[in-house]
């Protein structure tokens, strides 16, 4: 990613491996935070706003907690939210979209207009709404983020469905008496899967960013619980006193989101799907 050209070439060969390599430490942090964090997440261990040092690799926060420990402990919530919401959005959007593209007709028109309506609400605003209505629990966050990503996923999957519907093997199967479900499961899903997996990785990456944005706005994990987004929010208040405060959580967000992107890019090359996934990141990814 930020690699020099020499390393970029190594990454170019296996982006998936590079992505996994970046992701694995965070998965480990999420599963066993206490193994990696030098201190507890709420432990006040030193003077506030210390810069990075040997004792505190990322420094301390505004009340003297160890920043590295908080970044590590925040992994659990942030990873969980991103993976779960991407999974929900992927499942809903794919089924809805593929069917819409494949069945066509009125069903397609109505569902795509519905998608239009949902897409016309700004991503963050929609999530903000849902969380305000239903509360700030983790599952609400997951569902809210999933819901704002579902319409664009559906639109993307619909494009796949449309593309595959006219393929010769689908028609050949129809001529032989293949029903809708047979065609959906035997022909459409297997052939759409590579492209959809790439889309899923884009979704996961977008979910990381949306989740962090919500935390930044104070709608994610509530203090004193740590999240990368709310740590960055704190960083703004003290940018003149401790300029490096936000670097740790910021890099964590980018590395995790970037890892998903790399995995997706690797899958795309592996399966040689040329479909442009930019269209899916357009509406879900920007916050």
């Amino acid at each position: 990613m930020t690699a020099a050209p020499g390393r970029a070439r190594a990454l170019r060969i296996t982006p998936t491996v590079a992505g996994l390599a970046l992701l694995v430490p965070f998965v480990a942090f999420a599963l066993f935070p206490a193994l990696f964090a030098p201190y507890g997440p709420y432990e006040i261990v030193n003077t506030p706003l210390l810069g990075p040092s040997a004792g505190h690799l990322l420094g301390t926060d505004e009340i003297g907690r160890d920043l590295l420990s908080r970044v590590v402990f925040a992994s659990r919530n942030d990873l969980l939210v991103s993976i779960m919401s991407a999974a929900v959005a992927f499942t809903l959007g794919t089924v809805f979209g593929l069917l819409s593209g494949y069945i066509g007709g009125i069903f397609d028109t109505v569902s795509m207009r519905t998608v239009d309506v949902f897409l016309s609400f700004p991503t963050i605003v929609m999530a903000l709404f849902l969380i305000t209505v239903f509360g700030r629990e983790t599952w609400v966050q997951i569902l809210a983020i999933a819901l704002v990503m579902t319409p664009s996923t559906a639109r993307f999957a619909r494009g796949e469905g449309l593309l595959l519907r006219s393929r010769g093997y689908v028609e050949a199967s129809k001529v032989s008496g293949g029903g809708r479900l047979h065609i959906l499961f035997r022909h459409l899903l297997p052939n759409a899967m590579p492209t959809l997996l790439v889309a899923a990785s884009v979704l996961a990456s977008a979910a990381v960013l949306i989740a962090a944005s919500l935390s930044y706005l104070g709608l994610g994990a509530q203090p004193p619980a740590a999240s990368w987004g709310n740590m960055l929010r704190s960083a703004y208040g003290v940018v003149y006193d401790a300029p490096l405060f936000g670097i740790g959580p910021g890099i964590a967000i980018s590395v995790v989101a970037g890892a998903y992107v790399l995995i997706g890019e690797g899958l795309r090359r592996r399966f040689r799907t040329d479909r442009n996934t930019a269209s899916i990141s357009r509406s879900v990814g920007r916050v």
Partner: protein
Amino acid sequence: MAAPALVVRDLSVRYAVGTARLRALAGASLELPAGHRMAIVGESGSGKSTLGLAVMGLLPETCEWSVGSVSVNGVDVSLADERAMQSVRGRRIAMVFQDAKASLDPVRTIGSQIAEVLRVHGIVDKQGERAEVERLLAEVEIKKPSYVASLYPHELSGGMRQRAMIAVALAGRPEVLIADEPTSALDVTTQAAVVDLLVRLGSSGAMSTMLITHDLALVAGFAESVTVMYAGEIVEAGPVARVYASPAHPYTRALLGSIPSIGASRMGRLGSIAGTLPDLTAPLQGCAFEPRCPVGHGRAQCRESAPSRVAASGGGAVACHFPGELPPASAVPVAAPASRQQVGEPLVDVVGAGKTFRRGGLGGRRGRTVALAGVSLTVAEGESLGIVGESGSGKTTLARVLLGLERKDEGTIRFRTVEGGMAEGDSLPVGFAQMVFQDPSDSLNPLMSLQDLIAEPIVLSRGGRSSAYRAEVERLLADVGLQPTMIDRRPMELSGGQRQRVAIARALSTEPRVIVADEAVASLDMSARGQILNLMADLRERTNFTYVHISHDLSMVRHVCDRVVVMYAGRVVEVSTVDELFASPRHPYTRALISSVPIPDPAVEARRARVLLNVEAADAPLHDGGCAFRFRCPIAEGRCASELPDLAGPDGHLSACHFSDSVAERMVAVRPASAG
């Protein structure tokens, strides 16, 4: 003979494919005399297109190439010098590409694209630009040059676009014009008109033309000399009359034997070339054609040493150790004409089928396209019926309606049940008919094994798992001439011809009564076409299949069908037995079609006359109560605009024209621009 316009010496090109190097051209040399029309013929993988691009210095950057020399009218051209090549391209050597729609910039008008060439090469000054644009468009026989100049490529019909593309190429007043498959995307009548145009342009003496094509029949009507390529090498070259009359290379001979012709009466089995193209990434030893050669296969000389180029008797040159030698008799299937089966009872009966497509729908511009209008026809048990027509004639829609892939709007479809009575349905019932699609790489799911692909229709009709039918699949593979051991492969691992065999095996698997073949050989190379057509003929002889061939290719239809239905603009315009149709067509459209089909015999082509249609009227309204063909018809009169002609005629030879009985006298065919 004057000094050659184009000389190429020792041109070799290799493409990088992964870590391997694919040999696209291996030391090709050729001379194009000034003012001469030459054709380069070859199948895919022969290197013919690479040759054209290489001469223009337009090879992709990933390939390695070397060349002895290239010169145009005695002036050396350095392919490596991009700067210098810019003044060669378009100015000294111009090129016309296969697909004019894709080869013209879609967001620039025709006029601005021509003007750009004029300006870049400094052909005329600013004031003269517009006049020159119009002169060029007029030169390619476009009727309203100033209007057409203001249009965008997508606003033109296919034939007009190809003419515009030729005008762009002519703008730099090139000394050599290379046309790479310029007509393969066009309908047969349009193709004939474009070829005639190229012949006329190439006969002026000022410009030499090189036609790159896979179509041997086209060459016969165009070229003065022909160069045959195989696996990156030039295997034979010479005057077109000599090469066609007495081919010196076994490959040329086999190729000529593998194409059906409407000129000859039915030949029975087509010749075919066993095997496939050699692996071009492997180092070459001996003659590249040896493994497939009916003459040299197994001979030590052919296996061990590459043949050098020798003069061929009668003119030209050939690269063969045994030029002119005929294959041993047993190797040539001199077949008796396939026995025509008795035409049985009606199996399928279509009455008044209609289908209208609504375009755009919500949001788009709404438009209606009448794909089928009152189509009636009968398919008799055991016959091979051809349905021919140009794109947009409705022939494919008819097939799709029969198979239930589209719903008809009106009309009835009846079919013979197993008990012998006739039943009616929206389409033919599942299992009654199977379809062989045009492109096997699209119609076979790439993720499935041959086992699953071929067993799918069986599983769908009888249930169970595909592995339960393994023995049947193996037998079917053998039936279509594939090794049963291939059963676990996937389509990607097969050649185009093998894939189409799989598609046929799949179609046969549930023993349907009718097989509908929609352009089943159109996507295949010439040698594979012969194999597939022979296979279908064999299967027909062994079993009681009824075939419906949907095709634009009259030569093929003449070869494999008993009866022919000719369609135009969604209607049936003529129905007849195949021999009678070609001997005495009763509809002017059929006459035009037949006269446009190229015949792979230069002697015949030189004498041929052609019915010229008004190409530019192809988009006029088609369904207004009158005869849809009248806009293009050379003999239309007043009543054709108001009265729809009935489909009628004696002895089952039906035609939908008011002048069916006098069509021969009324139509005076015209000789195209001199081909000599």
